[in-house]
């Protein structure tokens, strides 16, 4: 059962997360290869704007705004946050110098993964575990036997539920660290 949940749900998630990592490495490699490293230096700006734009869904979800279809806004949230994160990861990967932006990047990475867990795994995993329970019940297994049969799937699902809870607190950490990084840039950058 665990293998099944892993193969059918966790693996696709891992692949999508891997795609983000691969796209980051490819982007970083290309910028270095094409001597366009300076582009990476500025990718943090559109990346941050995309992530901020993706928060419209969060405002809609918490009813701070009433306009917009939640479903479309969720799709926008997922896409803009993924693409924005990719840009920020390339921006960060160009060259690491200070600890604060490092921490912000790690927080963003955790945030993206927790968001993907929410998007890709939770609903499908819940349905999967539920389906397994019903199938075993139809076969005439007792309640304790059913619980034993779906034990590892249920444990995996619970772990993912916990992971999902990280999304908001870690976003706050990411936002605070990113803000610190942005303020330090505004403060020290050679604008003149």
């Amino acid at each position, binding site marked *: 059962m665990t293998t099944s949940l892993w193969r059918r749900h966790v693996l696709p998630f891992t692949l999508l997360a891997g795609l983000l990592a691969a796209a980051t490495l490819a982007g970083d490699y290309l910028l270095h290869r094409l001597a366009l490293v300076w582009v990476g230096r500025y990718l943090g700006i559109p990346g941050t704007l995309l992530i901020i734009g993706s928060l419209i869904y969060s405002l809609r979800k918490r009813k701070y705004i009433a306009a917009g279809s939640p479903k479309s806004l969720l799709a926008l949230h997922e896409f803009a946050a993924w693409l924005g994160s990719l840009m920020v990861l390339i921006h960060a990967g160009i060259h690491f*110098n*200070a600890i604060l932006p490092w921490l912000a990047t790690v927080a963003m990475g955790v945030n993206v993964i927790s968001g993907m867990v929410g998007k890709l795994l939770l609903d499908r995993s819940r349905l999967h575990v539920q389906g397994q329970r019903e199938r075993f019940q139809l076969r005439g297994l007792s309640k304790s036997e059913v619980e034993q049969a779906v034990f590892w799937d249920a444990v995996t699902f619970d772990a993912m539920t916990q992971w999902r809870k990280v999304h908001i607190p870690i976003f706050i950490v990411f936002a605070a660290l990113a803000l*610190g990084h942005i303020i330090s840039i505004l403060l020290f950058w050679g*604008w003149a």
Partner: protein
Amino acid sequence: MKRIVKMVLAANLLAIALLAFVYPQQMVGPGKLVAGHQKLEADCFACHAPFIGASSARCVTCHKPADVGRLTTAGQPIAKPLTAVPFHQKLISQDCVACHSDHAGVKRFRQQGRFDHALLQEEAAGQCQECHKSPADSLHQQISGNCGQCHNRQKWVPATFAHNRYFALDRNHDTRCVTCHVRNDYKRYSCYGCHEHSPASIRREHIEEGISRFDNCVECHRGADKHDIRGGRGEGTGRRENERSRKKHDD
């Protein structure tokens, strides 16, 4: 979010903020400072003006423009200067950060050791030998000054001058530059600097051919073969062209 989670988050962020103020170089600085500025590590505003960036006005409080390349900031003569001749005094403006970056992370984005000659005052820019040594090869050892005739201010190589476009230096003309370019003046030349050509002999040969204008030799002759005449603008090649050119020459 649970109250305890909020408190832990706030405490962590506060700690990070404090660390940023106590250790700004490690927390927000873009890489290590150059060796000479490491004492300023914790004092960002020694060089940076808030919301403006590193400012030349702050650089010159320690680095007096008149002393750059000559004296240290302590007023001592520089033991091993990076350039043979101080040149900062001959710059068109004192914009330090246009060339210098002190953080390792910023240096990576800039080409180091590249000097833009456009920053020099015009008079200084023409005096190449003030800063540069003439190459040791036989050609350059014959030349003094006038570097700009062959080399541009962006790159030493490739040199922009190809002598064969004007006159082929074949075995009959394998000679010193000053033989033709008197006083190393490459804007002018003379074909009368050698034993072979004298004004009288050249005049006689051309008059015999009915050619009256022969003051600018390379307009027609681009090499040692006196019958290989390339025409007034040097466009033609080969014998047929020569005939046409010769006719034109004769007019």
